[in-house]
């Protein structure tokens, strides 16, 4: 660790202070914001479904529906299920009730994402989001000939991302390794199948059927919208923890972690993407992955304002703040996926958490 224990404690207190200040300030504007996003999402959804009746407008219909699904899953679903809007007391925006337009049942996702990933962020062997159990995303994952297919697996995961996320909870890799029993998955299977049936019925049977002779066009359009959402979500999410310079941690160094150390790990284990307002909205503000990991339950619309303070704090403590434009972060992730497909060439580079070089925004 670069910081002394006292420094870490003070760092933690500064982060806690930001959190408290934002919590005390939550109110009408935050409520109006998320309601407005929901309204926009519903409008794009209805427009998308309706435009399939006009064959020449097919690309427009697909675009509308894609935007709807991206907003639903990211700025609304992901953030609502984090409990960011639970303080509003609105059942429609409650983390306990919200279900998203995605084949992964929200109940299971909340366990694997909110609990496992956000608690054990970037701890090898604990955080199952490192490679999602199928990819090699870190030097400290031992190489195996299976990983020669790393880029292919990554491509398939991107195309079928919502299915990957749903399957993620079944911990297939742990079953293969004998750490988990098939019987433990029974209840999960039922939940996934129920959700899959509902999603498939809507997108691949009912809405296409409602357009009569245009059935195949509508079916293809709905599948395309799901694909667009998959590709977009995969790319944004992979830029969150895998660009070069993002640190991973061993289980030993995270034992008996203090609050300050937890914040420190969240900060060094995440990376941001720079962009404009619309871009941040379409990423569900996961472009502020660092702020999201520091404060997962604060409304995401607050991340840009929080980011200014977090960067200032990082500069004072000499901590890396990993950010860059989408193409740079994506390029870095793609390079890592390909590089780690092969066995390590330089064994010396694999020592555990190295603080990232500060990257200019």
């Amino acid at each position, binding site marked *: 660790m670069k910081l002394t224990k006292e420094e870490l404690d003070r760092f933690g207190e500064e982060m806690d202070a930001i959190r408290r200040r934002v919590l005390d300030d*939550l*109110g*009408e504007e*935050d*409520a*109006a914001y998320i309601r407005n996003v*929901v*309204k926009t999402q*519903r*409008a794009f959804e*209805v427009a998308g479904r309706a435009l399939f009746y006009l064959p020449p407008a097919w690309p427009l219909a697909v675009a509308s529906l894609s935007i709807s699904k991206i907003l639903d899953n990211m700025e609304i679903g992901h953030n609502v299920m984090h409990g960011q809007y*639970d*303080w*509003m*007391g*609105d059942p*429609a925006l409650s983390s306990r009730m919200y*279900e*998203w*337009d995605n084949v992964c049942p929200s109940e299971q996702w909340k366990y694997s994402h909110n609990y496992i990933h956000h608690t054990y962020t970037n701890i090898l062997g604990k955080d199952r989001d490192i490679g999602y159990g199928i990819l090699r995303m870190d030097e400290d994952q031992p190489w195996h000939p299976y990983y020669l297919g790393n880029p292919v697996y990554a491509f398939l995961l991107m195309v079928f991302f919502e299915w990957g996320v749903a399957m993620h909870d079944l911990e297939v890799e742990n079953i293969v390794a004998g750490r988990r029993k098939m019987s433990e998955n029974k209840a999960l299977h039922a939940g996934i199948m129920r*959700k899959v049936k*509902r*999603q498939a*019925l*809507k997108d691949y049977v*009912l*809405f296409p059927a*409602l357009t009569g002779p245009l059935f195949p066009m509508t079916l293809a359009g709905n599948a395309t919208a799901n694909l667009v959402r998959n590709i977009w979500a995969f790319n944004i999410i992979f830029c969150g923890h895998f660009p070069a310079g993002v640190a991973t941690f061993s289980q030993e160094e995270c034992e008996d972690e203090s609050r300050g150390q937890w914040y420190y790990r969240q900060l060094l284990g995440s990376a941001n993407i720079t962009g404009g307002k619309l871009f941040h909205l379409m990423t569900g503000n996961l472009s502020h992955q660092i702020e999201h990991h520091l404060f997962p339950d604060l409304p995401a619309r607050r991340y840009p304002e929080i980011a200014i303070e977090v960067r200032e704090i990082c500069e004072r403590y000499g901590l890396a703040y990993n950010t860059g434009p989408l193409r740079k972060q994506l390029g870095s992730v793609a390079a890592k996926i390909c590089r780690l497909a092969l066995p390590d060439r330089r064994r010396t580079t694999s020592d555990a958490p190295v603080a990232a070089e500060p990257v200019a925004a």
Partner: protein
Amino acid sequence: MTLTQIGGRVLRSRAVAALTSPHGVDRYLEQINPMWAAHEVRARVVSVAREVDVAGHPPVATLTLQPTSTWRGHRAGQHVQLGVEIDGARRTTRVFSVSSPESRTGDRITITLRANPGGRVSRFLVERAEPGTVVHLTQAQGDFVLPDRVPEHVLMISGGSGITPVMSMLRTLQRRTHRGRITFLHYAQSPEHQIFATELDEVRRSGHGIDVHLLHPELGDPNLSPAFLERLVPGYRDVPTWACGPAPMIEAVRAAYDGSDALRLEYFKPPRTGSGAAGGELVFERSGRTATNTGASLLEQAEAAGLTPEFGCRMGICFSCTSRKTEGTVRNVLTGAESSLPDEDIQICVNAPVGDCAIEL
């Protein structure tokens, strides 16, 4: 069948549910008009009328509400949970008795309430709600109702704002032109504080077998006691009685009836008696905190331990506070029933631990 009914049928159909999955049709209808709903119940405030306005005392008002077409009506004596969004953000729900006579699908209803100094919802409704304000409702609930076949003689006892459910009963009986005898006994602070004074005065003067007794013990009228009741209604213990009011009055009524099953009660706050047994250890599993069991409700003990569990009515009605008890015995302070089942979902506002108890909070 009217057009509205056909529309309702369609909106509640399985086909529409499948098309609007996972959000449900109400999440779309509300975007167009908050008074459109297929399942949920909401209401628009039609008018707010001051019933009692004594300087230096909290005012009492009657709100006339136009519910959505989903309102299934209520039986005289029932209550609703009413949620308001204060400053457009934090929805808070409280329970109010309906004061208007029994209603049918879509009928207007009234609630009558005192703006309690510490009551956020009641103060909002009395002081800030205006025609057009939309509130959230549940269907009518509660067993404190008149039977379909009304007995020859009924006795109604109420105190303060506890008059509302029995007022609904009285008005209902008048509308049904009930031929039997009604004894209506109400306790208020002073004649100035009398809710529905004009209407009750008219009822008293018109006779028709309704005896109205408005009592003000602070001004020298007799307190509620077995002797007084016996003088007013000889053999009162066998007369079907409905009583509603503050806890001390309810206790006096309960004592006067000595376990008679002619008595039906409605109270606003759970009685303090019969809570759990103090002693033992309370474990809040999610937060990792522990406390010594004081015998108070789990909700109160969790709050005392610095936790902020979700809650609504705090009287065992709304289920907002439902949490999972993993082990231990709890006693329901309303019914006195004890339960020791592991992994049980309980309402923490009306359950108190008996000895050791672990809860997921």
